[in-house]
């Protein structure tokens, strides 16, 4: 008995360890490759990434941050109000709206981008960071709304009832009593919105067309189509690291609440 369990533990550690190495290897390698230079290690590749003709410019980062901020803010606002409505109220068209929102998941994103591109042109939002953010918010909605509805439903109804007895209206109930209670859901929704908007490639590729609007992702991907006769792989890996670092930091901070939010929200429905 003792022996099998020890063998068992060893098998577990060996398999898990080997797999963990395989999964971590590409990440570690990109860090290594981005620091590796002809004369050892240094920041030369990062220097080229930020200074050569082809690479990241400060405005790319500003654009990415703008799009991310707008998307996270917009998603949180719309999904919180929507989740509150779906979790706490009955209203005409509720079921239909919920189903249509979830249908976004089933519809090929890429297929309506052509139409979105034309539509944004009509609205005067083509080649604009706001237009891009609105589209990204829409694509975040099914997941976020689902998550927030479940989060609100998980909060006991007695909480709002007692708040209403204390004279709170529905809005102050939401802001004072319910928001703190659904915080894990908010964090998950916000984190997901950030990850998607910060990393998104296809939507900006189609919806943005002047270089001063380009996001970091577009700038880094453009390095793949190098114009100086060779692909600068080392600078490219530096670009990958620059893109990944903010996400990894957020992950490290939020992993616990993220997982909790995910478990309590996404899979309950």
């Amino acid at each position, binding site marked *: 008995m003792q022996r099998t369990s020890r063998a068992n533990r060893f098998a577990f550690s060996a398999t898990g360890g080997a797999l963990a190495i395989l999964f971590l290897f590409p990440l570690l390698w990109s860090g290594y490759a981005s620091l590796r230079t002809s004369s050892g290690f240094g920041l030369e590749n990062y220097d080229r990434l930020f200074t050569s003709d082809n690479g990241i410019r400060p405005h790319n980062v500003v654009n990415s941050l703008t799009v991310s901020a707008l998307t996270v803010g917009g998603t949180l606002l719309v999904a919180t109000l929507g989740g509150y409505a779906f979790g706490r109220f009955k209203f005409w068209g509720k079921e239909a709206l919920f189903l249509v929102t979830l249908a976004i998941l089933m519809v090929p994103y890429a297929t309506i981008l052509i139409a979105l*591109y034309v539509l944004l*042109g009509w609205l005067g939002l*083509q080649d604009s960071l706001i237009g891009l953010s609105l589209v990204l918010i829409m694509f975040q909605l099914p997941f976020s709304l689902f998550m927030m509805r479940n989060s609100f439903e998980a909060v006991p109804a007695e909480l709002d009832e007692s708040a209403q007895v204390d004279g709170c209206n529905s809005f102050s109930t939401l802001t004072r009593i319910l928001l703190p209670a659904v915080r894990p859901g908010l964090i998950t929704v916000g984190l997901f919105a950030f990850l998607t908007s910060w990393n998104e490639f296809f939507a900006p590729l189609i*919806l943005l*067309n002047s*270089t*001063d609007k380009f996001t970091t992702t577009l700038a880094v991907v453009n390095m793949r189509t190098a114009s100086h*006769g060779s692909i600068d792989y080392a600078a490219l890996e530096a670009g990958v690291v620059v893109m990944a670092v903010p996400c990894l930091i957020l992950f490290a901070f939020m992993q616990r609440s993220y997982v909790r939010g995910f478990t309590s929200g996404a899979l309950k429905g």
Partner: protein
Amino acid sequence: MISRKVQAAAAFSAVLLAAALGGCSKDTPAASSAAAVDDGAQLTLWTRAATEAVSKSYAEAYNKTHKNQVTVTAYPNEEYPAKLASAAGAKSLPDLFGSDVVFAAQYASQGLWQDVTDRFAASGVKDKVSPAHVRAGTWDGRNYAVPHTIDMSVMLYNKDLYAKAGLDPEKPPTTLKEFAEQARKVNKLGGDVHGTYFGGNCGGCVEFTFWPSVWGSGGNVIDDAGTTAKIDSKEMADVFALYRSLYDDGTAAPASKDEAGPTWLGALQSGKIGIAPGPSVWLGLIEEKGIKMGVAPITGLDGGDSTFVGGDAMGIGATSTKSAQAWDFLNWTMSEEAQVEVIAKNKGVPIRTDLASNKYSSADPRIVMINSLAAKGKTPYAKNFNASFNDPQSPWLQTVRGALFGDAATALSQGNTAITKSLQQS
């Protein structure tokens, strides 16, 4: 405020243009500059990375001597057509944009450029500039774009490797068969040196470098109207067979098979390639790396010089409100001043045929040779050129892959059908 000023300027210039066309039968310089306005407008110009350096030197020189100011933005070559298309759909085209000359017909047919027929006719230089470029920017008899740069395909060879391999560095090949022999000789040097290199996974690279050999051998590629492919010819098959044998026996570097374009120049800059066809504008870029290069015409199998006259054409964006100012810039780029002091001075090929020999070209005999080639070369014309030949998913690239690495005979005959179909799509 600004837009009202621009509108006034545009209206004013329209009146002048009408006057110039109606009143004068002779195109005096005064009349042509009347159609152009230099009032301090800010003009945006888009170009592809390959042309960026030239567009920027034009803009710099223009900005120094004019009130209008041109700002150049460059896009990666491969992304550029798509970016133009999406900007057009968004009605946010720049005031000026250039295009690979072979794609110009498509943009002209789609109305992405403004009609400049009358202005161009009034400029007095229309019959002095590269006719292939003018034709490329023409649709239904109207002119939409003017020549911007010329880039031609030539044989580039490494003089040091030639000497090492026991070849005479001053005697480049005069037939394509000689090219193969010399490449094989250089390849014997061994190590990481290879005889030749080509873009075997790049439709644009292959058409630019292989077609001159087909033309030089007396064959053709597409008909004049640009609607029927003619690639199932003996000449085409022979040219492919020759390159195929170079790849099969290892004379061509193995990476040739996967070369999709981005690292093509880098391979030649490495100094490890004996001789390879490529763009003439790379001469300077390769020599920058301290490699001594020779230049020779691309030839047919048994001789016959030819070249692919490439480069860019440029026109005024259809949605631009500053067409008079934009035309002022375009008109200036075709002037003797710009062509000699910007293009020729930087070892470029002038777009003006009457300026092929100038005070700068005589300094480097290689440049004289390149300039002289223009008259022997061709520029194919087709509305659906990009989708048929250059795009990574084009039927031409399929054909190239088959002809070089697969079943050559079927590839060419099936490719001919597929390309014709693609050319004829409305």
